[in-house]
């Protein structure tokens, strides 16, 4: 089954077309990397898919359902979660509090004036599970704003995960990270994909990460779809080399 089916997606800002006529399909369980030079329209593409703003033309289907005009929070309700290029978390709250808010919302408690003992205990179990997954258990009571960059990233990813999505959109998860942090985040993403059976679409600049993780790669250039294929095909693609890989080397 297809998780994501995008047809002729276009976004214009005034006279500038940031995304032009992009069509692509993401299969269940796939890990898709979206790459391209700066200004290729990758983040705009993500913002359209996640509902931060509406496309100028084209359609987006999620689990065979048309979500082109659906508000962002409802897409989350259907099982789509995302992270941002610049980490978006609740900096003045602790790691625990950050995760607790998400688990409560995910459990459908967001309007509840109180919780029962069993509900609280269930949530606590879920929170501990997530903290363990990202190796944050010993930092539970630290303010997220005070954590190292890599730990903030990890917090954002498990917050997205706490929503129990079946599609996870990651916008440059390793941006601004050192080698060790990049390695840890990459392993976390790989676990989510392989063990968690999550469908993941990620934007990434670090080619080691892309070629290590991706099942398929989509290359954007100047808002257009330049190429799509397996890592092997993309590495061999001449247009891609000219537009992007050649440039980097």
């Amino acid at each position: 089954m297809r998780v994501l089916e995008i047809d002729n997606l276009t976004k214009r800002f005034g006279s500038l077309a940031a995304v032009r006529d992009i069509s692509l399909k993401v299969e269940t369980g796939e890990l898709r990397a979206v790459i391209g030079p700066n200004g290729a329209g990758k983040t705009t593409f993500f913002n359209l898919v996640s509902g931060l703003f509406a496309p100028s033309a084209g359609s987006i289907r999620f689990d065979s359902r048309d979500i082109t005009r659906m508000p962002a929070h409802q897409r989350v309700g259907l099982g789509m979660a995302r992270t941002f290029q610049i980490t978006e978390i609740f900096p003045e709250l602790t790691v625990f509090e950050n995760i607790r808010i998400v688990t409560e919302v995910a459990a459908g408690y967001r309007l509840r004036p109180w919780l029962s003992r069993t509900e609280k205990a269930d949530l606590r179990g879920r929170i501990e599970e997530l903290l363990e997954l990202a190796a944050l258990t010993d930092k539970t009571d630290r303010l997220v704003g005070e954590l190292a960059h890599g730990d903030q990233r990890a917090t954002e990813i498990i917050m997205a995960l706490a929503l129990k999505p079946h599609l996870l959109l990651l916008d440059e998860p390793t941006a601004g990270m050192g080698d060790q942090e990049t390695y840890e985040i990459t392993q976390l993403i790989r676990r989510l994909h392989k063990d968690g059976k999550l469908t993941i679409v990620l934007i990434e600049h670090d080619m080691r990460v892309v070629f290590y993780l991706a099942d398929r790669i989509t290359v954007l250039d100047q808002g257009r779809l330049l190429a799509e294929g397996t890592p092997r095909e993309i590495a061999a693609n001449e247009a891609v080399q000219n537009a992007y890989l050649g440039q980097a080397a």
Partner: protein
Amino acid sequence: MTAGQQRHLAVLAAVWAALLLAPYWMPLFGGYTALGSRVLVLGLGAMSVNFLLGFTGVLSFGHAAWFGLGAYGCGLTLKFVGASTPLGLLAGALVGGIAGAILGALLVRRRGIYFAMVTIAFGQVFYYIAFQWSSVTGGDDGLRGFARQPLHFELFQIDLLHNDVSFYYFVLICFAAVLAVMASILRSPFGRTMTAIRENERRARFLGIPIELHIWIAFTLSCFFMAFAGALYALVNNFADPRMLHYSLSGDFVIMAVMGGMRTFWGPLLGAVIFVVLQDYLSSVTVNWMSFIGVLIVLIVLFFPRGVLGLLPQRRTA
């Protein structure tokens, strides 16, 4: 129990003890009981503003509108509908709260300065209505001709009008009841979504929280609290006047919240104590009392940017 929790309980006990015994210790410092009632009511108003400002991150600069509507709702009910203190309070809270709910629905898409400007505009509309509609509201002279009524119980009744101490305790009970509701909302999952919106609206949206709905609910709750405080204020003075709706009073509430510490639950009450007591004292000494309060505000904002209570280390809820 951790040391932090123990200290928190000790502070809470001290606050409530001070409030419970206020009619007995205040005269020692030149205070009087009616001043205590006024501090409680204006403090409740400042806490209602802060429910939105400090905990949802939304600045309303026209909250006096709901305060004043509560006062007029209470006063008009006592004057024309029925001579019952609880009925007046209920009517006041409903009038202001429902008006807030309706107008709030028009506001929730605005943010920051735009939100603040529109709330001022709404407040001024009510101010001019109260000012002009003399036949009902008494116009600039204010609404008179009503007084708080005794509370009737099976076996006895309590005189609230002539006995300042019993009225103080009545206000204190109302104050405590609203605070209990407020605190339990802030500790609920809904309250935590308010904090989420304050901390990072975009993240909150992408956690699946419908931001506009949640801001509207928080705004409406805050309007109900505010209107209830306004209704109590009408009882404190046996009087309601258009200045209770004016944006300068809205500004006073925001000042109280900021001075006391807007990220804290109790800060706005402390801000109200400072503001109201200074106002009471200074205005008997000089007509320029506001300039002294102004200097104090500048000093507090410069040296305690998070308010007086913002100095204390915050309790972590783990």
